[in-house]
């Protein structure tokens, strides 16, 4: 199939950006979206135009490296898929596709479609862990975990840190990302000792970079791992409890 692409090109973090139009010719319907971009890049290289910079690595929806807005949707048109999992059989000959980077103040654009998501790492550094010095762990089966709890924690733990939730959220909020990690750890028995400190510290760093949640639900829709906004409610509850604990402490 033949397609017309409108792609955001921005030479560097400080530079002005703009849309450029390229033709993608002879794309196989079994090619993935990123392979389609690879092909366009091959064509551009041939024409002496610098290829489009975009992030990707695993190309199977697990590393969270890829991510762009495709026609106004984070990760494109396929449900529960990151953009590397979108295949061209979702498009038809003659379509025009507009591709833009994530836009959020917490995710500054580096080049073309690449943004800097280190703010996510800082949120994790603030408390997204369970303190367990190497070698000090007790025998694993000493702490049984109820299956429903384990399953729910797993559901939250699946977040791949792609940033689509921020990109999709009208407020540029990172609530779903943060909620996923807080819920994963706060649900498990292992996570209890640091539970309240964790949520307060992570929220504080989250708010340094990102907007606040007004419950649009757009993040859940964009999330390739289908992380539920129920976890946002969970985060809010733990934050509230943590704050009241602080009240009592002070």
């Amino acid at each position, binding site marked *: 199939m033949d397609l017309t692409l409108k792609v955001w090109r921005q030479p560097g973090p400080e530079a002005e950006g703009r849309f450029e139009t390229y033709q993608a010719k002879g794309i196989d319907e079994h090619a993935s979206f990123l392979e389609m971009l690879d092909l366009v890049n091959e064509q551009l290289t041939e024409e002496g135009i610098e290829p489009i910079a975009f992030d990707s690595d695993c190309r199977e929806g697990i590393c969270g490296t890829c991510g762009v807005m495709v026609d106004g949707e984070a990760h494109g048109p396929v449900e529960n898929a990151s953009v590397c999992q979108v295949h061209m059989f979702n498009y038809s000959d003659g379509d025009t596709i507009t591709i833009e980077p994530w836009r959020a103040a917490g995710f500054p654009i580096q080049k073309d479609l690449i943004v800097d998501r*280190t703010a996510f790492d800082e949120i994790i550094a*603030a408390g997204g862990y369970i303190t367990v010095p190497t070698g000090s762990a007790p025998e694993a089966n000493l702490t049984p975990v109820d299956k429903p709890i384990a399953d729910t924690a797993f559901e939250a733990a699946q977040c791949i840190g792609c940033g689509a939730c921020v990109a999709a959220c009208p407020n540029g909020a990172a609530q779903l990302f943060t909620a996923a990690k807080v819920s994963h750890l706060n649900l498990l028995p292992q996570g209890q000792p640091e539970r309240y400190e964790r949520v307060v510290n992570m929220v504080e760093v989250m708010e340094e970079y990102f907007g606040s949640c*007004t419950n649009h639900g757009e993040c859940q*829709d964009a999330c390739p791992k289908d992380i539920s906004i129920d976890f946002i409610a969970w985060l809010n509850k733990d934050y509230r409890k943590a704050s009241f604990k602080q009240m009592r402490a002070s």
Partner: protein
Amino acid sequence: MAATQTGATSTASRNRRRPWIAEFYASSLGKKYAMAITGIVLMAYVFAHMVGNLKLFEGAQPLNDYAAWLREIAYPALPEGAALWGVRIVLIAAFAIHIHAAAVLTLRNRRARGTKYQSKRDYNAADFASRTMRWSGVIVGLFVLFHLADLTFGATNPDFDHADVYGNIVTSFSVWWIAAIYVVANLALAFHLYHGVWSLFQTMGWNQRRFNHWRRYFAVAFAVVVAAGNLSFPIAVQLGIVG
């Protein structure tokens, strides 16, 4: 990018210094919490207000008596009008906090986006109501000012009589543009509540997976009931059913 990264906010700097309530309200999550609580207060008010106003359909005497009774609640335990003032203070505070939090968060959220998307966004989940909260909120806010001028201070009515609430309402709502303002404002309120009532469950962390779908039903029901009740008054007057 990729500059040497050490913990930007190291644990030490995360220790809090201000009183907890100030810390709490300073955070976006705290503000949301305040909005939800004040939202609940406002919800309770508009609901009770709507139910009380239904006396309009019973005729002039019952409504006027009801209005008089409102001013006398708890009298003589409290001075006349004290309870009403109590309610007013709570209401004013709720409005003030609700609006302050809304304004600060709106600004923060706008800043959090930075540059807008340069191509058309495609929303799948964020509906009209959720995306227009600040506008529906502002409309309701402005309406309340107008409404106070109209039915509390009688600015729109030369024959305004404090004791004749029924007459005041009928006189105002007979004017087509005043009726129209009420209709528009209450539609805005309906949208505000449609999202707001659902949203506050999330904000409050009231979340039980088995019952979560009921939150939406409740929000719809609440918005529809309040709006239907409130809309019925100007429409009834305009249609001559009341008057």
